[in-house]
């Protein structure tokens, strides 16, 4: 889309005078806006990272993010944590929870969405309404009944309650999103594949999934990110400290009985968001490359 826009401006005859500089002004303007907004977006993160290297007095007294008296105490002590385990344990635990969760979410959401989007299922409307209904209820109220249920299953103090439900497409948000992307696809490609003799599953995996890959990546990204920040669920289901994910570990030293070492918490929070950041940076090229154009013509 961008290339066509720049092509549009190129196709006009080059003008004389100040108009000649229009592309440059254009670029400057765009970069300017991006940098300004980007700074606003980034500033709190910069402050967070900078705070990791400040001592605790400085954190609350200065707005600037460059520490006046840099110190590694926050990072070192934060990594060692005040518990029997280092922060590495908590990071590992988080991955043990999040990675299975993301994988099963993606698979089940795509499969179920395909069913809704392409098949004449009996009672489709009502089932879809049921799917949406699960998204509408605030989670805090479901907590106790869900807890009792998982207690009956014997899943307490394990990671199972945290990702097994996701294997069954309980997250209506993601299913709905994939459905929308599927519905915005013209049927020609799939019809062509069927005429070539593919069954529906092959159409799904070979034709549809690649085309809506941006959406699938988005689902994976969101689930990854949100799971990393999830506090209440792990809190309720995990009682052993060695199983804590970072969301719990970060709050472990914030207490009412003693002063909190915020530089440690900021340092570890910065480390904790690094995986999501890296993932996003790596994934965003899927939002860039247009995979669709060739497929439609073929």
């Amino acid at each position: 889309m961008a290339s066509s826009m720049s092509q549009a401006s190129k196709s006009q005859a080059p003008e004389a005078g100040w108009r000649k500089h229009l592309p440059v002004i254009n670029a400057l303007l765009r970069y300017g806006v991006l940098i300004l907004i980007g700074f606003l977006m980034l500033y709190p993160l910069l402050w967070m990272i900078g705070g990791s290297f400040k001592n605790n007095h400085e954190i609350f007294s200065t707005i600037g993010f460059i520490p006046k008296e840099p110190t590694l105490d926050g990072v070192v002590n934060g990594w060692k944590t005040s518990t029997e385990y280092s922060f590495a344990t908590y990071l590992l635990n988080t991955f043990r929870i999040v990675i299975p969760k993301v994988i099963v979410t993606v698979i089940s959401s795509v499969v179920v969405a395909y069913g809704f989007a392409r098949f004449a299922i009996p009672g489709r409307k009502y089932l879809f309404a049921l799917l949406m209904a699960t998204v509408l209820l605030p989670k805090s109220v479901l907590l106790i009944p869900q807890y009792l249920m998982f207690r009956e299953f014997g899943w307490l103090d394990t990671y199972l309650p945290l990702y097994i439900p996701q294997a069954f497409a309980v997250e209506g948000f993601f299913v709905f999103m994939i459905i929308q992307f599927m519905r915005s696809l013209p049927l020609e490609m799939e019809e062509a594949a069927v005429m070539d003799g593919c069954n529906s599953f092959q159409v799904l995996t070979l034709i549809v999934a690649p085309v809506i890959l941006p959406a699938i990546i988005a689902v994976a990204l969101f689930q990854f990110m949100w799971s990393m920040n999830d506090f209440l669920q792990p809190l309720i289901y995990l009682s052993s400290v060695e199983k804590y994910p970072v969301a719990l570990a970060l709050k472990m030293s914030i207490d009412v009985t003693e002063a909190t070492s915020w530089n440690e918490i900021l340092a570890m929070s910065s480390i904790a968001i690094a995986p999501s950041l890296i993932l996003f940076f790596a994934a965003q090229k899927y939002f860039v490359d247009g995979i669709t154009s060739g497929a439609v013509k073929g």
Partner: protein
Amino acid sequence: MWPGWRSVRLWGAIMYNNRLIGSLYIVPFIIGFLLFTAFPFVASFVLSLTDARLQDQLGAANFTGLANYGEMAGDATFQKSLGVTFFYVFVTVPLKLAFALFIAVVLNFKLRGIGFFRTAFYLPSILGGSVAIAVVWRFVFAGDGLINQALGAVGFGGVNWLGEPDTAMFSIVLLRLWQFGSAMVVFLAGLKAIPEDLYEAADLDGASRFKQFWMITLPLLTPVLFFNFIMQIVQAFQEFNGPYIITAGGPLKSSYLLPLMIYEEAFKYFNLGYSSALSWVLFVIIAIFTAVAFWSQKHWVFYAQERDDQKGGH
């Protein structure tokens, strides 16, 4: 070859008429719903009809019928909370959608280093309800915080963002707007799904960029826009982190969004029955809004299959 496949106007185009296979595809959802969602769902509704206390065994609760709902009608805190929640939704959703769409379009340009900007803009969403946000955001909005200092630099007086009931809500709104990254990513994915050849054809026809946006981008984006619209409404009604962390619902309950009230009723006052009733009221409200939005989609949402059927149309 599947017999009889054709577009059906009922709910949108379907591809296969094979109900059995279709049901097979959604079997995971059926199992998941029956296994994991149905019981808590129904249980929470039943709890709303009791005087259950959070710390007691559930069996100790007494059935009180609609008493909780009746109490709600006379509860001034509930009414205030409801009003505040509506205000929040009506302000945040349009702003967030517009902002996310605008930034997505901007970020779709092929400028050098655009990847870096995309990551930067998405960053606030990654921070989410993280512990660090609490510290940072309070810092930003404090009386002598970042925003007031910036305002002072351009000559405006400072605003008591967090201290006055009139302005406290805006700090929550701004926090949510700042975290527009998720909506933006979905828009980006949607923008990418629009085939390039459409734009090329429009260029050949001599259409301006603005016209291209209006006639090509926006219509083809409507399924994704619809999705974002629904989800933003739902998420706005369920906003919890902001008020919980930054203002604690105050001052004077001016930022006491309903999800926060639901949480406090359950986990602070241990009134599980009332909290469940509140959450079901919220559920009904969101369901109504969602249903209306779904009904409205036939007026403004444009699905590709329909495009094929209307050859020669728009």
